[in-house]
């Protein structure tokens, strides 16, 4: 229905602006209806401007800036109707340490609404978790799971974690 879509779109638009500014610590971002006269058919465009930079085509953004903008968009839609479980597979891969911190801080802010399963190779992302699950493959081709609890310093002394990486 038209009203439901318009309400959803407006809410997503507001979320995107706020989540983007939160993840980028500034800057500007909007979602726009390409054809405002025709909201039920119109495509949705994304416009993004990191802090201090000129407004340019999204293509000119860096790999990490695009990834963080996409994460902002994902979270904006998610916040409309937070799913009980959210699974993220290596979305931190192109991010530098500072941006990984901003991403994990935001996941921690949303943890009261949803449970997060985050697949990662990054130590900082691992540190943000309550629990770690190591998947190993000692016998060729055969996956096995080992629970590795996060206990501060022990995290990096753990033999399992040494084997993980």
């Amino acid at each position: 229905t038209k009203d439901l879509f318009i309400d959803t779109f407006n809410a997503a638009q507001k979320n995107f602006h706020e989540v983007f500014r939160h993840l980028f610590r500034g800057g500007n971002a909007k979602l726009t209806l390409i054809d405002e006269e025709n909201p039920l058919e119109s495509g949705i465009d994304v416009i993004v401007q990191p802090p201090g930079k000129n407004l340019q085509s999204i293509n000119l953004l860096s790999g990490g800036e695009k990834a963080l903008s996409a994460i902002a968009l994902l979270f904006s839609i998610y916040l409309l109707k937070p799913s009980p479980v959210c699974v993220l597979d290596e979305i931190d891969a192109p991010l530098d340490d500072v941006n990984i911190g901003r991403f994990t801080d935001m996941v921690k802010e949303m943890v009261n609404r949803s449970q997060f399963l985050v697949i990662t190779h990054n130590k900082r992302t691992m540190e943000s978790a309550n629990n770690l699950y190591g998947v190993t493959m000692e016998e060729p081709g055969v996956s096995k799971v080992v629970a590795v609890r996060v206990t501060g310093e022990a995290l990096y002394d753990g033999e399992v974690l040494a084997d993980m990486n």
Partner: protein
Amino acid sequence: MYLKRIEICGFKSFVDSTILELTPGIASIIGPNGCGKSNVLDAVRWVLGEQNPRVLRADKMADLIWAGSSTRKATSFAEATLIFADCDKVLSMDFHEIAITRRLYRTGESEYLINKAVCRLKDIESLFMDTGLGPHAYSIMEQGKIDQLLQMKPEQRRFIFEEAA
């Protein structure tokens, strides 16, 4: 509501019966390349009703069944179970805990169960309606796919919004 346990057996690289015991909060899944982390995400998506093998990186559904290795023979079926807890007010069925199982045989036969009672795929889909969970909800972000949110055509992006509405 949260995902309390994932059980995988014969699905992709998890030839042996494997259990992940989860809690609310942030769980991080770690391990070397190719050890099976993304396969866990695929199992979750599959149980929630994914019908397109390509989304699970397979050419056909039968490819999801343990294919054998240098030390083990292929198996005849794949099975995975998701157990959700605290789902009294969230799901459309009146249980405190709910177990959803999907099984696929090499013959092509499929089985779906809710709390060990055989049901249809439709029942599983309607169970999760409106929760934001499901194979095509925005709550599962697969490896390498987050860029698409920004790169997709405005018309395609619209579908995502319609789903969230």
